[in-house]
């Protein structure tokens, strides 16, 4: 988003990574644009950190290529790559003070002393640590160490900055503040950031694009809104934000609409690209799922209000379906809550339920519960 010219900074082509027989990254293809804030998001063990480490040069690529500005970096050692890393535990040199830590990269490049001094000063100013030059890492707080780690990486003016869960060890408030600062810094410097995290909220807040990974596979890549509103797989829908997922069976297909049956009822929704007798997932965000005491057209999904939970800015209602599945529904505080135990009809507005193909298509035996679609099932 930062720059619209689509110059590719880092290109991963069919990258595999194996540890013995264990394949942790599976034919990964990824283009990262210049000046972009790209987040690799996924649960632990999904291969995101391994991917980052392959870009940095700490891990060898088993299969495939990585290009930095069009150049294959296969034979380049970490110290020969124009990328720098901010490590999860900061990895500050404990025997060096802040100044020496930050200057390390420039000293290694044999930059002249006055120049080093000037640039260290610049960096300290940028991360707001002026006056702390002589402190040792052990004498600093987590947030301060984090800033030193960022300054130490950025002073080398890398083409790409790699960040491996850099905020993981900070408390919530500081983490929020650092998220903001990092994003701000990235925009200001225009450097490509590749950011690894398992925190989906962090990813949504900071990124230009998010690449969601699961079990070594890239599930989806796109802008935060796209990932959130139009998840491409069940995993993405489930992992990003809260989602209610129904399994359903396509009963009927007719011009632009399909009739589906769930374990707990039926619905007719707008959809294309699905065929009859297919299994699908329907994902509805808690804020998009609605309940009504009255029957609703096109929907016949019934449940019982089980619980109301107050979680601050919104109310959360738990509804139990006839098959025992529990759904989460959030409503604004000004919406009147239905009383506990009352029977309700569930529905969502057009376009708010995401339909996804299941990976293996199977016949779903739920025909007994079927209701006629045209009638909307409101009896």
């Amino acid at each position, binding site marked *: 988003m930062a720059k619209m010219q689509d110059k590719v900074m880092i290109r991963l082509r069919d990258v595999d990574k194996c540890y013995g027989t264990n394949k942790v990254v599976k034919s990964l293809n990824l283009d990262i644009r210049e000046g972009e804030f790209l987040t690799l998001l996924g649960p632990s063990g999904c291969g995101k950190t391994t991917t980052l480490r392959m870009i*940095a*040069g*700490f891990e060898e690529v088993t299969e495939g290529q990585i290009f930095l500005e069009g150049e294959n970096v296969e034979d380049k*050692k*970490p*110290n020969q790559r124009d*990328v*720098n*890393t901010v*490590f*999860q*535990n900061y*990895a*500050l*040199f*404990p*025997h060096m003070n802040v100044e020496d830590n930050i200057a*390390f*990269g420039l000293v*290694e*490049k044999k930059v002249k002393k006055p120049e080093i001094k000037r640039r260290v000063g610049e960096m300290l100013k940028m991360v707001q640590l002026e006056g702390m030059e002589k402190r*040792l890492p*052990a004498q600093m707080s987590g947030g301060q160490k984090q800033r030193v780690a960022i300054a*130490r*990486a950025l002073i*080398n003016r890398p083409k790409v900055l790699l960040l491996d869960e850099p905020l993981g060890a900070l408390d919530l408030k500081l983490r929020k503040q650092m998220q903001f600062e990092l994003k701000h810094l990235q925009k200001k410097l225009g450097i490509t950031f590749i950011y690894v995290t398992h925190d989906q909220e962090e990813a949504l807040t900071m990124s230009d694009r998010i690449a969601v990974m699961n079990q070594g596979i890239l599930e989806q890549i796109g802008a935060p809104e796209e990932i959130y509103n139009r998840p491409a797989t069940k995993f993405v829908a489930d992992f990003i934000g809260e989602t209610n997922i129904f399994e359903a069976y396509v009963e009927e297909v007719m011009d632009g609409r399909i009739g589906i049956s769930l374990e707990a009822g039926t619905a007719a929704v707008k959809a294309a690209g699905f065929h009859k007798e297919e299994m699908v997932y329907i994902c509805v965000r808690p804020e998009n799922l609605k309940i009504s005491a009255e029957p609703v057209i096109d929907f016949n999904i019934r449940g019982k209000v089980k619980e109301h939970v107050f979680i601050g800015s919104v109310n959360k209602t738990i509804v139990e379906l006839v098959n025992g599945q529990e759904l989460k529904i959030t409503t604004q505080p000004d919406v009147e809550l239905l009383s506990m135990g009352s029977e309700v009809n569930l529905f969502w507005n057009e376009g708010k339920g995401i339909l996804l193909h299941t990976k293996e298509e199977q016949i779903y035996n739920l025909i007994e519960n079927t209701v006629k679609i045209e009638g909307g099932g409101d009896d």
Partner: protein
Amino acid sequence: MIKKLGKKLPTIVMIGPTFFWLILFVLIPLCYVIGISFLTKNAYGGVDGILSLQSYKDLFQSEYLKIFTGSLWLSLQTTILCLIIGYPFAYLIAKAPANRKKYMVLMIMLPFWINSIIRIYGWNTLLRTEGVINHLLIALGIISKPLEMLYTDGAVLLGMVYDLLPFTILPLYTSIEKIDTSLLEAARDLGATKRSTFMKIILPLTMPGIFAGSIQTFIPSLGLFYISEMMGGGKTMYIGNLIKNQFLSARNWPLGAALSIILIIITLILMKLYTRVGSLEDMA
């Protein structure tokens, strides 16, 4: 009163035996040695009950000073050689995969199960004029006359280094293993070569281990007397031999005791330094 005793009883039972052991076999002999050092030697061995500082004055005779400096020099050489040989070993063990690591440590510990004198005797059979190495070299036609390897200063140094190497390796290994791998990655990431990473990160961070290893090598090396006898033939006198001789052959117990006291004081100073560095390291 009884209640109080009951509370303390477990502590007394736990540390009591150790306490008595230390009093009986460390404190009392130590006082005995200190006592002897201030008495007068008896012509037939043993001491006469006349107080005297003679033995301490004797220490400053040039021949004894020479032996002291000679011993310190040998210990220093031993320590430095042990560091140079031990560091790569320790590094290899620390960086080995976990399952191989324990066997490697075991290999380092293994010699401890055999008495050191016996192991040194093994070197003796290897090095002597009629020994294995000379025989082998002559048989291979590399030399025609046996080499004089045993009973040289070099042989003493070899024996010392061999005997004390594990004491250097183990603390080095511990401190190398403690280094966070991400620090090395960070250094590489910031453009450092392998050499530079070693000089600027690994070496400074393992200084406590280098220091601990040095002390743990240096202190015992000062007192070892049988190596210089078995490998050096007693040609060059070191502190250990000197002390032994004062008690067993020269029959000058007060001087032997005074020498021992000096050795203990040197050791204590080094130990103090050692714990000091240890606590500094904990602070960091």
